[in-house]
């Protein structure tokens, strides 16, 4: 990176040849990294397609819950999931087992609250 650093500081003292060499390096580096980045994205998209799109007959995209009870349960699970994830994250970051830390903040309820848990708060205010 000697030449590039020199270019960054000042190109006044550089010969035309040095400038040319430096620029060529910048170009190769630049085009190379752009391609590298977009190739990474290429493989990611291909992988994403493999994982998400493959099983065509079965519709994966956001299944409409048939049953509100089920939906409610899911939510409870999800929330536990959030706490679990944060707990796990902190635990592993603190080098300790999650067993010493876990907070069980929500127990499954048999309550069958309907879909009013589903919409954003502000949108709902607007609808009042």
């Amino acid at each position: 990176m000697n030449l590039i650093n020199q270019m960054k500081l000042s190109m006044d003292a550089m010969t035309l040849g040095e400038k040319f060499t430096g620029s060529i390096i910048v170009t190769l580096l630049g085009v190379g990294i752009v391609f590298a980045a977009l190739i990474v994205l290429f493989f990611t998209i291909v992988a994403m397609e493999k994982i998400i799109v493959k099983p065509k007959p079965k519709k994966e995209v956001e299944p409409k819950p048939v049953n509100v009870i089920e939906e409610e349960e899911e939510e409870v699970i999800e929330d536990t999931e959030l706490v679990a994830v944060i707990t796990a994250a902190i635990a592993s970051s603190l080098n300790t087992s999650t067993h010493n830390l876990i907070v069980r903040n929500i127990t499954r309820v048999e309550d069958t609250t309907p879909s009013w848990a589903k919409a954003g708060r502000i949108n709902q205010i607007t609808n009042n």
Partner: protein
Amino acid sequence: MLDIISQFLQTTGFLNMTGGQFLMIIVSCVLFYLAIVKKFEPLLLVPIGFGMLLANLPGSGIMDEGGLIYYIYNAGIKTGIFPPLIFLGVGAMTDFGPLIANPKSLFLGAAAQAGIFFTFIGASLTGFSAAEAASIGIIGGADGPTAIFLTSQLAPELLGPIAVAAYSYMALVPIIQPPIMKFLTTKEERLIKMEQLRPVSKTEKVIFPIVVTILVSLIVPSATGLVGMLMLGNLFKESGVTERLSKTAQNELMNIVTILLGVSVGATASADQFLKLQTLKIIGLGIVAFGVGTACGVLLAKLMNKLTNKPINPLIGSAGVSAVPMAARVSQTVGQKENPNNFLLMHAMGPNVAGVIGSAVSAGILLTLFG
């Protein structure tokens, strides 16, 4: 050429990522999941999650001096400008009619703030400083802008966990509150029908925000910013002569501020700030705050029902925690499960909007004491 490439590789994030940052990226993706698939307060959790994501991508420098979010954070969060601007929009969306029609709602809105101060005790005793404990307690206010405002002034290093906890629990109100409400009430109480609310005149609705601004600001001057903007927004709405301003306050201005606020708040959740034991404590204390607030609201409503001659269904007490309008809808739904013909929504909106005022007042008190 090879050494140049290797030097460039040094600048990439892959080689500089810490385990904590990796975990935080996962946490931000969980937030996206909750916001987008589970529709938990998406308007705030999507920007907050994205800010969190950006701040934990090593080398992005987005929160370093000169970084994009650094500027936004300093302009809007550190100064405390963004939350009052959001309140301007909230005020322009809020109908205080049910509260004016039944001013007793105010007591319920006050009672439900007990969760804030109760949690303050818990936080003080578990190792937090007073300013931190106050910021954690305010989660119990169940009001996002208020929580962000107070925390940004008292304990900005806790903004990330407190904002995440506040908005998550607000989204979870339909799960947190019903068991508490049922445990504390009898079936007979839940069946109580309330008298229809009287119609409220336009004059009252116009005078209300002005009077509230004056009185609340006199009693708790530190609450002036929040309460004043809430009431200015409401005055825009109710005056009937500033519809242009009301519309902009509740739409474009609010949306712009929401985006900038959410991203900045999320960006404070860097791995080294967020991945601490205290974050779990905050999450735990936050749910205590919600629970105690709910309970106090219900209990005072029970008491009021016994002391006054007009019937009060204790289920509307839980709406006093704020979490507008979710908590009021919870009251409605729990009530309707006992009797499908009992419509509590409008009755619960009174304590609900009173709770917004109540938590802004509480924030003012805590700011006065520890600011």
